[in-house]
């Protein structure tokens, strides 16, 4: 990494040795990875001078310039000569080249710094990794040793276990052996006992014979007189009949005992069945409605419906008479199912409760809990509000009831109430007055309208009279004319009839009109029919 390539600088004078030496001195080899030391490329000021003076002296100015020019042109820089083959130096280009070279130098320096930085980093990483590796190796060693130790312990325990098993087996074998010994001894004793007993029986038989044979001491009973039987009956002979009778009686006794027991058992059975039925009903009522748990619905729905049917069936029929296997099994099975369901339900509730207590994060539960809390808060608020309302109401009520405490205030209050009422009444009065005025106005207008109507009516009557007179006079003339021409009469008759009809009609109409006028409300409608009549009159005339 730290190796520098030696750059051979060609074509130089004796100075090149120095350069060689110098550049070879610059060979930096970093044997250890840890050394971060880099030799800076810039030499010390002393060597700088020697370096500079070594290259260019007064003698070889031109040669050095031409060398420089060659180098620069090969590096891509413009020539430093003013012209291609002239000896005049282009100062500007020289300066530019220098600048370029400086810039290049800076860039190279920076690049070098970066590389060195990276180099440092990689070195540290490498060290770190080496450390880890060492540690892991140690750990591995330790665990390997531990495993070996545990394996050893395991082997020991297993061997102990085997020993204990062996001991147990031995003990068991011993116990078995002892039992065998006991049983064999017991059989031996039994056998001996039997032998002794047989001997004893033989002795007894012998003795019995002897006793029976001996006649000196009579085995007898002396009794003054025989006593009657306790139940008053006389002794009976022993016959087959009596034997049969005895047997019969015995069986009767047994049977009666069994019957009694069976009755008791039946009663107990019936009671238990009743209790089971009751229990089943209770369990069913305890179970929650299935809609809350849709999952279970599919499983228990059909089951429940079956059970419901069963329940219905069993309820209908008389329990006491049902004692067959199937019904009993059905009942017990249905109860077992219900009980299992109830148990599951209770277990679920327990789980829920425990989960709520432990505060596990289950969305459903959290939400429900939050809802619950919210609801409780709401309810509390409501309760609070209601309480406050009740309080205020109570206070008001109290005040009401406690009114005679302060006379002034009560009077004031009363006054206030009175004022209120008074104002209200005043308003009403005002309204009333207004209405009254309106009514008066309307009445006046109506009366005027009625007067006008009367006048007009009068005028109309006069006109009518005059018109009738005219008509009458004209009709006489017409009648004379009619006698002359019969054909012309008709239209005249028609006319007359029409004319005569008209006044009737008009009279009808006027009467109608007047009646209508009379009937119509005084709302200013009078003017219309009047006008109309007038127009009619005008038409007719």
């Amino acid at each position, binding site marked *: 990494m730290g190796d520098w390539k030696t750059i051979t600088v060609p074509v130089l004078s004796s100075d090149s040795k120095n350069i060689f030496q110098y550049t070879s001195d610059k060979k930096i080899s970093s044997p250890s990875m840890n050394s971060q030391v880099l030799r800076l490329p810039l030499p010390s000021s002393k060597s700088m001078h020697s370096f500079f003076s070594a290259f260019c002296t007064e003698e070889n100015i031109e040669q050095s310039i031409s060398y420089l020019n060659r180098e620069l042109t090969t590096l891509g820089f413009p020539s430093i000569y003013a012209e291609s083959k002239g000896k005049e130096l282009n100062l500007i280009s020289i300066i530019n080249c220098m600048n370029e070279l400086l810039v290049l130098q800076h860039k190279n320096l920076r690049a070098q710094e970066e590389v060195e930085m990276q180099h440092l980093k990689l070195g540290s990483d490498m060290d770190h990794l080496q450390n880890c590796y060492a540690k892991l190796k140690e750990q591995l060693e330790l665990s390997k040793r531990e495993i070996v130790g545990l394996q050893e312990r395991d082997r020991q325990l297993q061997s102990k276990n085997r020993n204990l098993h062996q001991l147990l087996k031995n003990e068991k074998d011993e116990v078995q052996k002892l039992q065998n010994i006991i049983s064999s001894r017991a059989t031996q004793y039994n056998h001996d006992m039997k032998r002794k007993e047989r001997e004893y029986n033989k002795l007894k038989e012998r003795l019995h014979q002897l006793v029976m044979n001996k006649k000196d*001491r009579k085995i007898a009973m002396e009794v003054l007189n025989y006593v009657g039987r306790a139940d008053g009956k006389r002794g009976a002979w*022993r016959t087959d009949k009596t034997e049969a009778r005895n047997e019969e009686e015995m069986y009767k006794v047994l049977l009666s005992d069994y019957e009694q027991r069976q009755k008791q058992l039946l009663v107990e059975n019936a009671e238990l069945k009743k209790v089971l039925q009751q229990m089943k009903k209770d369990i069913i009522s305890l179970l929650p409605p299935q809609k809350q748990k849709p999952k279970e619905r599919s499983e228990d729905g059909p089951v429940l419906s079956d059970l419901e049917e069963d329940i219905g069936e069993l309820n209908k029929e008389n329990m006491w008479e049902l004692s067959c296997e199937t019904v009993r099994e059905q009942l017990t099975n249905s109860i077992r199912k219900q009980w299992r369901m109830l148990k599951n339900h209770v277990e679920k509730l327990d789980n829920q409760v425990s989960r709520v207590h432990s505060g596990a994060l289950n969305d459903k539960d959290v939400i429900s809990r939050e809802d619950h809390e919210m609801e409780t808060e709401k309810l509390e608020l409501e309760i609070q509000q209601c309480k406050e309302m009740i309080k205020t109401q109570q206070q008001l009520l109290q005040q009401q009831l406690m009114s005679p405490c302060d006379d002034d205030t009560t009077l004031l209050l009363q006054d206030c109430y009175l004022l209120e009422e008074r104002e209200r009444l005043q308003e009403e009065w005002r309204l009333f007055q207004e209405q009254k005025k309106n009514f008066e106005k309307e009445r006046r207008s109506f009366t005027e309208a009625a007067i006008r109507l009367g006048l007009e009516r009068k005028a109309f009557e006069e006109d009518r009279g005059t018109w009738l007179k005219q008509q009458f006079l004209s009709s006489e003339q017409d009648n004379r004319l009619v006698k002359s021409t019969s054909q012309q009469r008709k239209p005249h008759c028609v006319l007359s009839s029409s004319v005569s009809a008209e006044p009737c009609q008009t009279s009808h109409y006027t009467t109608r009109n007047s009646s209508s006028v009379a009937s119509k409300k005084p709302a200013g409608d009078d003017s219309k029919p009047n006008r109309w009549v007038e127009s009619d009159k005008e038409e007719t005339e």
Partner: protein
Amino acid sequence: MNFSEPFKLSGLLGRFSPDGKCLASCVQYRLVVRDVNTLQILQLYTCLDQIQYIEWSSDSLFILCAMYKRGIVQVWSLEQPDWHCKIDEGSAGLVASCWSPDGRHILNTTEFHLRITVWSLCTKSVSYIKYPKACQQGVAFTKDGRYMAVAERRDCKDFVSIFVCSDWQLLRGQHFDTETQDLFGIEWAPNGCVLAVWDTCLEYKILLYSLDGRLLSTYRAYEWSLGIKSIAWSPSSQFLAIGSYDEKVRILNHVTWKKITEFEHPATIANTKTIVYKEVEKSPSVETERLSFPPPRALASSLFSTQSKYDVSQVPVSLQYIKPAADRANPKMGIGMLAFSPDNCFLATKNDNIPNAVWIWDIQKLKLFVVLEQLCAIQSFQWDPRQPRLAVCTGNSKVYFWSPAGCVSVQVPGEGDFQIVSLSWHASGDSMVLLSKENFCVCYLEREEVK
């Protein structure tokens, strides 16, 4: 509670008559019959020899007195004091004697259990039952007195025969062999339909036979260890309590004949629901100034007799436990006494390992109810025939009563020691007779008093 004065007694032979009117007691060779209420001597009979056993006939008209040494049984009549009857077994000897349920036949068991002779008092007939079994309870009568079961042994096998008591005929086909090794006892259930047969203590085996001889069920709790020591039927025949040498009582039910529960009798009682009554002594208060010499009789007796009362002990209580010697036969261990109360509610037991305690179990709940811890070993206890009241005696001069309301210890007044060894209730439950070796006294209980 009144106590009569003590009367002489021998052989612990003091019996109430079945009708409850008389009390028979014997002193050596004399039989004294007293009236129960007044204890006046009604009759006095003299027998030929020292009486070893007396028994009233079921109608209370006759008493038999058995003298085993002479092999004689004498029967006395209460109605006719002149009437006499003597049964002489002669060289056959006499080992046991008892009445038949009809009160007119006497069953004598001859020596070596050669045979049982049935002597009739109303006819001249005699019946013999051959090969009776030589065991404690070889003959059992049903409660209604109709049938008699006799345990027999032939050819090294046990048999049971059922006889009809009215004519002593063998019930047809009712002669069956039992599967026992060595039958120890038989007992009828109170309803007369089931016979319990149990084996010797070397084998825990109890067999239940129906009246017609069918085997209903067999019950074996365990093998090899010592087995059944005592059994008791409940008055309703619903339960059969079996007390065994392993200090447990097992209860079988009459429907399935299977064990429904076991009652353990541990030395430490830990259940808080059990009430433990412990008898403690009260030191008598004696005023030393008043002492005079010679001390008057009453004072003397009260000085020497200690009062005692019951204290309720706090649970857990540990009782005195005795482990008997393992190399002896018939060890004093296991449940030796069992008794059901007449109303079927309680069962009183005694564990011979814990001789000072009476255990009372509640049968309705099948749990231990009360433990009575006494100062001395329990001699005997008996339930009142009418109500759940238990009388206990422990060999001192006190009698102890327990009922669900509480328990009380009563000192029998009297001079000297009166060591009550046995007691027996009157059929009405109003009085009881307390027996000691030398004397007996009658205790009259007032209805309202001891509850």
